[in-house]
């Protein structure tokens, strides 16, 4: 089951539920540090890493400024190699195209490599409704497909499922196997999934993969994987369908190589993933294997609207997941709370553009603006800046509730009048200092219940910063 109906508008409730989920909290706590350490070690091993980030940003900026031309070039190359390119304006169009190809192939089952676009267009549920059985073959995707769940992380979809629950899921679904078999170890679970999926790979009529890159120079589509399931998915069936969004195109093999040097290091901290596969058209006449048909579905779904706007920079994203791995908010609520396909900082910027600011307006506010996401983004996407822009847009549309709007307006009124601001803050500060200095902090305070419900409010310990600054004659006081 895919996330067809977003629950992003319920983000505050989703987040509260996630915070109360003890299993999820254990998983998040153990996972995030590993990702961060591995990424930082991988970056440190490559002295050119920061230079490559600049170059990768420039490559994608150039592409986005010439996206129409690179897409045409890509399409022409694919066609020359005997493949087909299909253009889809929105999710429904993309689903229809995939179904039509499956029907023409007489497909009963399709195997699938990991694809965020498939999640974005809700492909699995749609194929099932239309009598085509989709089989996810990435281990994480397979687990959550059996469980009827959505991915909770873009590169680790079953991030939220502890191994005991994987075992339970396998017991429930793999009925042909001995119920007494041992399933405690990750190795046993992996072996079982491998064995169960082997036959499915051979039985499938169509294989569907995503694409990390589309190469305009050669017409190749690229998948970057570790398990090898994507390659079996696209090599064994008679038909290979690639799902990709417009902005995946890059000019040359050289440009692709540059971005590839950043992708795995930023995502998992690997120097390179086990498999990076470039697919160009269907099998050649003399080949012994490979698909006989090769289709690429190019999805727009709102992206062309971003070109030429402040939000265009989000289209540089290569879906490495570094922003969420380093996000303090994602780190405590996980991916499902975001309520749609793309969680974390990238989702906070992308989701409002793809499913609407009304649905996703909470997400750009789910940030402390600590800036870690931007500091690790291999494509140097200014995520906090884009979230700030979306907050402005949300305010401009009148989406926040009245109390919040009035509060912001009152604060803005004060902030723009320094004298009044000083006066308005000095009085309460002095009062709070008088009452609370001895205790050091307030456990409860009228009008500040939202703060003191979760933590103490420190009491002011003396004059305000501004008063100190003036006393020092507008210079730094010497350290005492």
């Amino acid at each position: 089951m895919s996330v067809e109906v977003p629950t992003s508008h319920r983000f505050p409730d989703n987040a509260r539920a996630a915070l109360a989920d003890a299993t999820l909290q254990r998983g998040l706590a153990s996972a995030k540090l590993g990702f961060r350490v591995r990424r930082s070690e991988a970056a440190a091993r490559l002295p050119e890493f920061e230079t490559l980030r600049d170059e990768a940003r420039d490559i994608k900026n150039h592409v986005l400024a010439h996206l129409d031309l690179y897409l045409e070039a890509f399409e022409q190359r694919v066609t020359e190699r005997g493949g087909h390119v299909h253009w889809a304006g929105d999710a429904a169009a993309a689903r229809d195209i995939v179904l039509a190809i499956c029907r023409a192939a007489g497909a009963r089952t399709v195997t699938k490599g990991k694809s965020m676009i498939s999640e974005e267009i809700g492909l699995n549920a749609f194929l099932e409704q239309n009598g085509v059985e989709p089989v996810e073959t990435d281990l994480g995707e397979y687990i959550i497909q059996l469980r009827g769940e959505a991915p909770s992380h873009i590169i680790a979809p079953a991030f939220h499922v502890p191994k005991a629950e994987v075992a339970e899921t396998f017991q429930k679904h793999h009925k042909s196997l001995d119920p007494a078999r041992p399933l405690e170890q990750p190795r046993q679970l992996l072996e079982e999934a491998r064995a169960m999926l082997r036959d499915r790979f051979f039985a499938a009529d169509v294989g569907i993969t995503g694409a990390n890159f589309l190469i305009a120079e050669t017409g190749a589509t690229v998948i970057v994987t570790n398990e090898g399931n994507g390659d079996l998915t696209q090599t064994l069936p008679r038909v290979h369908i690639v799902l990709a969004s417009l902005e995946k195109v890059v000019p040359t093999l050289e440009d692709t190589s540059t971005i590839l040097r950043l992708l795995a290091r930023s995502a998992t901290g690997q120097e390179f993933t086990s498999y990076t596969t470039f697919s160009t058209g269907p099998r050649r006449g003399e080949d012994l294997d490979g698909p006989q048909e090769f289709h690429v579905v190019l999805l727009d779904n709102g992206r062309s609207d971003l070109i030429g706007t402040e939000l265009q920079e989000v289209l540089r994203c290569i879906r490495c997941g570094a922003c969420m791995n380093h996000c303090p908010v994602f780190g405590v609520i996980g991916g499902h709370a975001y309520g749609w396909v793309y969680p974390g900082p990238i989702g906070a910027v992308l989701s409002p553009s793809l499913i609407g600011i009304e649905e996703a307006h909470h997400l750009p506010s789910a940030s402390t603006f600590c800036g870690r996401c931007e500091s690790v983004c291999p494509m140097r996407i200014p995520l906090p800046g884009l979230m700030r822009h979306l907050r402005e847009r949300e305010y401009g549309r009148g989406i926040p509730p009245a109390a919040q709007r009035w509060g912001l307006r009152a604060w803005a009124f004060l902030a723009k009048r320094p004298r009044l601001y000083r006066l308005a803050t000095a009085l309460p500060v002095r009062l709070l200092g008088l009452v609370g200095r001895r205790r050091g902090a307030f456990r409860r305070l009228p009008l500040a219940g939202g703060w003191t419900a979760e933590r103490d409010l420190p009491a002011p310990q003396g004059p305000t910063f501004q008063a100190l600054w003036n006393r020092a004659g507008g210079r730094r006081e010497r350290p005492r």
Partner: protein
Amino acid sequence: MSGTPRDAVLGALRRATGRDANMAEAAAAVRTRLAAHARNTIPARGLRETQGLLELFTEQARGVDASVAIVDDFGAVPGAVADYLRGENLPTRLRMAPDPRLDACPWDDAPTLEITRGKGEAEDVVALTGAFAGVAETGTLMLISGPDSPTTLNFLPDAHIVVLNAADLVGCYEDGWDRLRATGRMPRSVNFITGPSRSADIEQTLQLGAHGPRWLHIVVVAGGAATKDPGDG
């Protein structure tokens, strides 16, 4: 104004970029870039020409759980393959790519091996293929699909043994692409393979052998003559 979804998408992109006003210039920029194959920054470690390539490749490949054996010439390949299978306690039945370089090896020297040729099949446990190139910067094998190198052999077996001529070692991916361009053909698949299959999808615990091979063994032929380019005929 626009009939097909293609027209609608391209139309929207052209409006957003003011393409009408700059079409000639923009098209020229794109054409030039696509033809130039200009390189971006290549990490220093990938810039070595021949000296140290084998050492770097070996170190990097071993770092990602591949095993590497180095032999003097193609004549020693059968013995190295048999030794490896014995050492890992793997079956001696193997499926071999119909690659002339492999065919030319003296397989009679390893009579324990039971060899069939062809594409990968469900029951294959061990596969043996050649490689188009090896990229030292990350210990990456570059395999290209073709009648002498079926892609299924790279992914179906439990153990994948790859014979790599040291003369086909390059420093960086870009060198590999230039070699491929020089053959004048673009195959259906180019597979960059860096270590065996792996997954950390269950509790972030790394496991080898997810859907692809659990063992990747590379036999480097150190003294072998440069591989003749099939396009040279």
